[in-house]
């Protein structure tokens, strides 16, 4: 037997050990920011996207929460890259739940991530929906 913790899948483990997409951008007209959650409730995220030609050129995050939540935020920065505002408005938390094998007890935290994605879409540079 190994001492590996069965609560976490490989995707969560890999992203917790080497989280990608951590950080923030210098504020500017091409940067959209979305915040969601509450540290007192155990999950808080700040998600930022730098937008070029109506699409996410790069995304970054900062997160306070459990390993599933941090790993999902990291996963999201790559998933959103290349997406339009419409893509962000349609993004559904179930996608990351499946990708990272997140247990049902943590689904509520993924909704917090979805709230942050929606907030980014709401703060989209220029305000208008993408037609690209």
């Amino acid at each position: 037997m190994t001492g590996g913790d069965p609560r976490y899948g490989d995707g969560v483990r890999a992203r917790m050990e080497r989280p990608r997409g951590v950080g923030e951008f210098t504020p500017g007209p091409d940067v959209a920011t979305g915040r969601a959650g509450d540290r007192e409730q155990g999950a808080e995220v700040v998600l930022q996207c730098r937008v070029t030609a109506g699409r996410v050129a790069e995304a970054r995050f900062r997160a306070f929460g459990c390993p599933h939540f941090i790993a999902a935020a990291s996963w999201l920065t790559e998933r959103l890259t290349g997406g339009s505002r419409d893509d962000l408005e349609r993004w559904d938390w179930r996608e990351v739940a499946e990708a990272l094998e997140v247990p049902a007890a943590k689904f509520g935290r993924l909704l917090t991530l979805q709230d942050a994605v929606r907030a980014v879409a709401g703060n989209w540079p220029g305000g208008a929906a993408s037609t690209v």
Partner: protein
Amino acid sequence: MSEVIYLDNAATTAVDPRVVQEMLECLGPCGDYANPSAVGHAPGRRARARVEQARAEVAALVGADPAQVIFTSGATEADNLALLGAARFYRERGRHLVTSRTEHPAVLDACRQLEREGFEVTYLKPGADGIVEPAQVEAALRKDTILVSLMQVNNEIGVAPDIGAVGRLCRARGVLFHVDAAQGAGKLPLDVNRDCIDLLALTAHKVHGPKGIGALCVRREPRLGLVPMLYGGGQERGLRSGTLPTHQVVGMGAAYRIAAAELDSDGARIGALRQTLWQGLAALPGVSLNGHPTRRVPGILSVSVDGVEGESLLFALPGLALASGSACAATSGEPSYVLRALGRSDRLAQSSLRLSLGRFSTAAEIQYAIEAIVAAVTRLRAIAPPVGS
């Protein structure tokens, strides 16, 4: 150093090799494996002698007479036998008990059972330092109070109330005093006569003995009544039927004998290691000690770490075996009820670590633990959004 540094000695300890050796002498075809109740033959009498020797060793650690010691399966059973057994025996005398909100579930759940049977229980709230003071107990006593139950050492934060003062108070008021000494026996001095303890719950596995064996010390003079929970062969003076596991009993005796001999030296060494650990962690901003700084057992350190989430902190420490709270409650995901009772916020309670040291903890392990925790906290805080951003 081993692959994983073991800092969960409040959950359980490694069996001391000296204890293992004595236990082995009671196993196998050449060992003293016979039923210690079968005193009609020589092997049975040898096993009985082993059991009585162990009974005397257990009694000696807590200043008791060997005849007071009733072997059980552990402290949980001893707590249950003490509370349920005494309350049911004395129910015509009164139906009120006093305990604290930060007791082990073995006591709290037994109290809940008594409430279902018509008893009333007062749950005292400890101070912010985790200590229940004798004055609180005194204020809670009523004419119909039959029993007070307090733990010698809290299993989550390691604080130790003034057991002797509470015992003398109870004795003066004619109220039975039960002490759960699972975490304290063999680590802090305890004497059932000096401390006026009527019922004392003990276990072996917290003090480098085997799991699955404990004892209840029951006052003999004047004789204290208990309604047993198990019926059968009438072993242990009818209070705990069932064949005594000689090897387990012998293991407990050996563990208690060694603990008595090494209490001072182990305590000083482990206490110094805990202080080193605390100083190393306190160098981090936002780290606070849970519980009274000095009225505590040497081996338990509980800290809350602001700015990190508890589950992620544990995840980030794969090289350390430690607890985010009581091992009994850690699977629930709920913030520790002990830390909540101390007034910690849910967030701080959830981001607490219990590091518990034992006889085999080393300075090198403590140094490794400090470096690992500091690195993990620093990394997780760097991922988190700035507070108030």
